């Protein structure tokens, strides 16, 4: 284990750790907070809430986003809900149960202390959001309503129709706007961070490109917070927004921050299937639909053929000829098994030849039973906007015919390694939300990403960063004329010039799509040694092609979207390789990481706790050189490790 990998998990029993830790870490006085600058990169739930909370505390905050407004960040697209251990439905939920479900859902590959803290602060988030005016769904009595999500047997998910992420982000964005108006936060929109600047081994600022003018800018600070989300777009087709990218995390990795569990990517079971080569992204259908929707494929091969030839409709297949395979295989959780389990089960049926659309890569999500039970009106109230979205895309009315769905890349559990304080291996550099690795292990449960983003931003980072900044009250504002800034700016300009000077023939998307195919085929839902080795080889070849045959039109000093993409895809071409390498060296199956060689007779994941109960973290050693892998062992002091069981 590297000496840099000190997790700083506090001593004591699980429920005492965070309380004790808060009491022990240092705080900064209001007068000194005014002298300290913090840069927050990204304005999703993590970034917006952190920037707002730090601004409220009195720090000088600079917040950066690549869109034209902080409100566009991809957290906005989260549909189904946010978990909290309120136990409002009186179904015996508790902080402990939320903690336990999350650890188990992550297939025992996340840190106990972090996850417990997450569950502990979950309730505060709901209080905070309600105070901000987030219009959560309510019962007729005026109190908050809950629904269920995968991987749990209680109803702990708070929601605002199918737009929960949007409403939570608008809450955080509003809090941020208030601080911008008060002058504690300065907002830089249409700005992209291109490098981290370090002085004497500490994070001291960033280099950013103004995306409108192309100007390269220097920004200094006492600490930098990365909240730029995940890297799912390495697969080209994913549910991520088009501009979501992993470049900031990658820049930090190349400056020395360790990257943890890069191969842990989540494949979401309920997405609208791929329709053809012209497709640019995949659309998610919320997991909340699995509360009332039942997933099935035909039992008989002849029905499958008739469906594909469009000779019959799904609704014409009688009940006895339908295989509700999740209910069959997992009676205790049924349609609400965790995402990785549901995705693999869909793949299994499609691989066996029961896929229901022309490509053979789709299963049905059916609301017939729910409409019969509850009436169309109730279903419309619960999922109206999702049904509308589905119909607009596919031209099929899901009230009459079942939806067709298939798994797609959705979220990355891996990310920058952080300690209990959310600090990376670089002092002064913090990572929050999806950008870090800490809470979800091998698989994230539904409605937990929103919870983590806001927990980190509102309630954890503002405390822990104070401990670091307390040591900086004597340190002056960072001088952006320091040679470190000059050097960083120079190397960025050279990199951009290099991209323009390739002057090849292919647009960026050509390479991105090719990379996506390699990733999906070999580093996707099922992985094996030969495939992963092949992926690494093919990515290396593709990367060479990219640097020989890319064409970036236009100039550097203008609004240039092709250049933006080129910078990001250049990084994806490196990240993909690290993901494959991580998957190759983790010779076990856990959560979303499914190594075909390691499975039970029933096709479930087969963990190897003896050899792989650790966080794999990677240290960059230079371009084209093998990175070094370090291990942070995971210790389970408080819960009994078991094989995940969703059957009974």
């Amino acid at each position: 284990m590297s000496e840099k990998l000190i997790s700083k998990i506090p001593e004591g029993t699980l429920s005492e750790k965070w309380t004790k830790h808060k009491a022990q870490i240092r705080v900064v006085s209001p007068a000194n907070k005014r002298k300290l600058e913090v840069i927050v990169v990204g304005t999703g739930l993590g970034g917006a809430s952190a920037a707002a909370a730090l601004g409220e505390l009195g720090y000088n905050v600079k917040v950066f986003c690549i869109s034209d407004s902080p409100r566009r960040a991809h957290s906005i697209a989260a549909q189904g809900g946010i978990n909290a251990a309120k136990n409002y439905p009186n179904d015996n939920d508790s902080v402990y149960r939320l903690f336990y479900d999350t650890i188990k859902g992550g297939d025992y590959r996340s840190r106990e202390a972090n996850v417990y803290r997450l569950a502990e602060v979950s309730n505060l988030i709901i209080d905070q959001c309600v105070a901000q005016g987030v219009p959560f769904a309510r019962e007729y009595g005026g109190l908050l309503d809950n629904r269920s999500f995968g991987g749990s047997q209680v109803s702990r998910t708070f929601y605002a129709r199918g737009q929960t992420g949007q409403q939570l982000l608008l809450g955080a964005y509003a809090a941020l706007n208030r601080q911008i108006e008060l002058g504690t936060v300065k907002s830089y929109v249409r700005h992209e961070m291109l490098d981290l600047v370090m002085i004497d081994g500490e994070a001291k600022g960033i280099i950013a490109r103004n995306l409108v003018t192309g100007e390269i800018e220097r920004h200094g600070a006492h600490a930098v917070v990365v909240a730029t989300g995940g890297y799912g777009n390495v697969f080209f087709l994913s549910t991520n927004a088009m501009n979501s990218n992993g470049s900031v995390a990658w820049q930090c990795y190349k400056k020395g921050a360790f990257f943890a569990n890069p191969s842990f990517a989540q494949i979401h079971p309920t997405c609208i299937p791929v329709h053809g080569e012209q497709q640019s992204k995949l659309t998610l259908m919320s997991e909340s639909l699995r509360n009332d929707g039942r997933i099935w494929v035909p039992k008989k091969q002849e029905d499958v053929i008739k469906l594909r030839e469009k000779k019959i409709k799904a609704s014409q297949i009688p009940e006895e000829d339908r295989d509700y395979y999740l209910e069959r295989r997992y009676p205790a959780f049924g349609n609400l098994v965790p995402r990785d389990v549901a995705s693999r089960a869909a793949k299994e049926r499609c691989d066996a030849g029961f896929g229901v659309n022309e490509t053979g890569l789709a299963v049905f999500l059916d609301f017939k039973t729910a409409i019969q039970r509850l009436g169309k009106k109730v279903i419309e109230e619960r999922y109206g906007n999702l049904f509308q979205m589905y119909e607009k895309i596919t031209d099929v009315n899901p009230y009459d015919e079942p939806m067709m769905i298939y798994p797609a890349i959705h979220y990355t559990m891996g990310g920058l390694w952080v300690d209990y304080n959310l600090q990376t291996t670089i002092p002064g550099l913090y990572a929050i939300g999806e950008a870090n690795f800490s809470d979800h292990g091998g698989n994230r449960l539904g409605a937990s990403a929103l919870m983590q983003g806001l927990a980190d931003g509102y309630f954890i980072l503002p405390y822990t960063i104070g401990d670091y900044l307390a040591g900086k009250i004597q340190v002056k504002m960072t001088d952006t004329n320091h040679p470190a800034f000059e050097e960083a700016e120079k190397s960025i300009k050279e990199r951009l010039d290099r991209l323009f000077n390739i002057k090849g023939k292919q647009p960026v998307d050509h390479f991105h799509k090719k990379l996506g195919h390699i990733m999906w085929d070999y580093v996707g839902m099922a992985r094996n040694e030969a495939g992963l080795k092949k992926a690494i080889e093919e990515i290396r070849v593709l990367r060479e092609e990219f640097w020989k045959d890319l064409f970036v039109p236009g100039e550097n000093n203008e609004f240039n979207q092709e250049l933006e993409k080129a910078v990001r895809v250049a990084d994806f071409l490196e990240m993909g390789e690290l993901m494959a390498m991580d998957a190759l060296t983790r010779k076990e199956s856990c959560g979303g990481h499914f190594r075909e060689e390691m499975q039970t007779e029933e096709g479930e994941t087969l963990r190897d706790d003896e050899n792989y109960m650790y966080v794999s973290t990677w240290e960059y050693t230079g371009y084209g050189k093998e990175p070094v892998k370090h291990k942070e062992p995971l210790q389970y002091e408080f819960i009994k490790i078991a094989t995940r069981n969703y059957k009974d």
Partner: protein
Amino acid sequence: MDFTLKVWRQKSAKDKGRFATYKVQNISPDTSFLEMMDILNDQLVREGADPVAVEKGCKSEGPVAFDHDCREGICGMCSLYINGRAHGPDDDITTCQLHMRKFTDGETITIEPWRSAGMPVIKDLVVDRNALDKILQAGGYVSVNTGGIPDANTIPIPRDNAEESMDAAACVGCGACIATCKNGSAMLFVAARVSSLALLPQGKVEAARRAKAMVARMDELGFGACTNTRACEMECPKDISVAHIARLNREFLKAKIKD
């Protein structure tokens, strides 16, 4: 399907701008409108990269700049005036949710940016919507700090109020209402936020102050006045009702009377 595209090209805010005509072919009806734009841009980038064409004097203007991100109708990043309508010829959607099956084979499609004084063009079809952030900064929030909040269920809210608040909160801040309004007014955008918060007990406390501050900021930034043409409501991708403008006016009047 094949289409002829008349696309607005403008190099920068200072450039005068003009229409350019392009052709795209073999487009699947299941392709989304923005995927069709991707295909156009792929063509344009390849033209620019073709040394033979460039030698022959072909001056590619490069790909068309347009804003887009989530491509599922929620981030509000995409815009576009398509055949004279904000977000194109389908109801209750943003441009990214528009599919080519809504057009006829061989059709000529005209594509323009939002045109409104409050949202100047940055390049081609991309406009500057920073003014919308500034309006919200003036008061589009409940003034509470993080932490020290009582339990969420201590404030019961009638379900109908919560639902109506949610209807208004569905605004994605795309700017279609402003682009559609002949006065370039941002009233529906402002009203959506003011009304959403005014309907909730948490937001009531400073409802009057909020309405006044946001309207003042809107005026300051050069947006026009509302003359009740209801065009905004027609083109809102989230179907936000002008009834919220009535609520904004009520809050605004209350504030003015108190002054």
